[in-house]
């Protein structure tokens, strides 16, 4: 049972209902893998929602289905009221492997401009947007460099700038800071919140880091183990202005963190077969 989120007048921007994903058997005699059994949740316009779960819980599968990169086996997936049957125009994705997502044969600025080029924007417009985006992520001087000349954290900023310049309605981030060192991660987390507030974009943030999910999100959806169902849906009632030092030492932060940690531990033993909805306690 999900705790009440802030009511809005508009209908949800993303509807996931009974989502199911089964990977067919790789060889004729093998077994099909039911990665996702039944996922149901909605996301409102402008929310920052984090998704956590144990390893192998199908977080990336879920994200790829929402991104239109993977066709679901069953269930309903709708973005702004329209069924998702391929990568939607108003969505941008930031992948975990920034080193493999940016194109090494193009400069940073060219990388940021590429999706805009395909979308048909004029050269001047592309240049304005990419310059703005690079400034917004703190890379104003890196435009003419190549991605491999930058550090990991900076490369991920370029990937974020690319998504921001695209001006999506909804931004998907698949464990984007998992491969980045802790200090850089803290900076990037603050960057995501800053951009989210400035742009008013809806953000779906997949992570395995519980602290990160509580620090960033307005809401945290906890997934069970495979075959995956929604284990819990927690509202993060921390203040809007968050800070790495004060927020993380807040008492409420620790409570929420404990709750989600306990849920994850339960989730590790819980699958779609054993999940008992009545067991979930309100915080």
């Amino acid at each position, binding site marked *: 049972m999900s705790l009440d989120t802030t009511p809005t007048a508009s209908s949800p921007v993303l509807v996931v209902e009974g989502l199911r994903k089964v990977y067919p058997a790789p060889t004729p005699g093998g077994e099909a893998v039911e990665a996702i059994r039944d996922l149901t949740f909605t996301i409102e316009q402008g929310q920052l929602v984090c998704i956590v779960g144990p390893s192998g819980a199908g977080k990336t599968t879920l994200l790829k289905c929402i991104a239109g*990169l993977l066709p679901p086996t069953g269930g309903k997936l709708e973005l702004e009221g329209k069924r998702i049957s391929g990568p939607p125009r108003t969505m941008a994705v930031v992948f975990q492997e920034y080193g493999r997502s940016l194109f090494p044969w193009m400069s940073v600025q060219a990388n940021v401009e590429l999706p805009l080029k395909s979308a048909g924007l004029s050269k001047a417009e592309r240049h304005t947007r990419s310059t703005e985006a690079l400034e917004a992520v703190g890379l104003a001087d890196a435009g003419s460099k190549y991605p491999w000349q930058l550090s990991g954290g900076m490369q991920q900023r370029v990937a974020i700038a690319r998504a921001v310049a695209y001006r999506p309605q909804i931004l998907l981030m698949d464990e984007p800071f998992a491969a980045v060192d802790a200090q850089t991660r803290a900076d990037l987390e603050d960057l995501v919140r800053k951009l989210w507030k400035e742009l008013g974009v809806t953000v779906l943030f997949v992570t395995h880091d519980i602290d990160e999910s509580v620090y960033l999100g307005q809401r945290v959806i906890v997934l069970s183990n495979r075959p995956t169902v929604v284990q819990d849906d927690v509202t993060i009632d921390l203040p809007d202005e968050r800070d790495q030092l004060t927020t993380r030492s807040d008492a409420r932060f620790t409570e929420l963190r404990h709750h989600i940690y306990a849920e994850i531990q339960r989730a590790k033993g819980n699958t779609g077969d054993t999940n008992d909805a009545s067991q979930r306690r309100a915080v």
Partner: protein
Amino acid sequence: MKLLKSFLYLVSLPAILVLLWWISTIVNPNFYVPTPAELVGTFVDTWFSDRFWRDVLPSIGRLFLGVIGSIVFGVVFGILIGSFRTLRRLLEPLLEFFRAIPPPVMLPLLMIVMGVNWRMQVFVIIFGSVWPVLLNTVEGVRATDEVQRETSRSYRLTRTDRLRYLILPAAAPQIMAGVRQSLSIALILMVISELWYTSSGLGFTIVQFQRNFAIPEMWSGILLLGLIGLGLAVIFRYAERYILRWYHGLREVQRES
């Protein structure tokens, strides 16, 4: 100092070999082996005459046409075959079959079909040297990084943009490796295509010298061929360094980490 060092590296071994050759021709004169001085003299006399315009330039012209043709056909068909799995499975046995045929064996057939002219000769060059480019392009296209592919799909890149900004650049290192191999094959085929039934060309001239026992002239022709091959390699090196600037930079960074 560094310039001197690289010059010495370049020149010392050839210089030693030439010295050994010169000494052996003095100690043991042989009709079939000219002295270095003789060779250089003959080289200048033979090739810096109207032979240059009549034989050398047309041959080099056909060589270039053949190289460009094999690159164009190799890359275009390589992209098509690499991108569509069904196409590749359909064509694979046929390609393996044609690839196995030694081009010189095709000469008599081609002569009947196309006649003895420069078109036939260029065709022979392409027929033999397209394979490294084609096969390397197929492999390069197939090996496009999965995350990059997903990125371009999620941003809804158009087909042309995907080809121009993802597939071709990603496959470029492999394609260039194929082009390097095809250069050597093309040079060989240029000579072979002129060995029979032709009446002009570099390969033809060298064989004429051989048949007429004009030994120093024959050697000078071989020297010229070597120089042309060297020239091709140097041009290729500069082209590759320019086209793959990003790749060399990337590899250097990876090596350092």
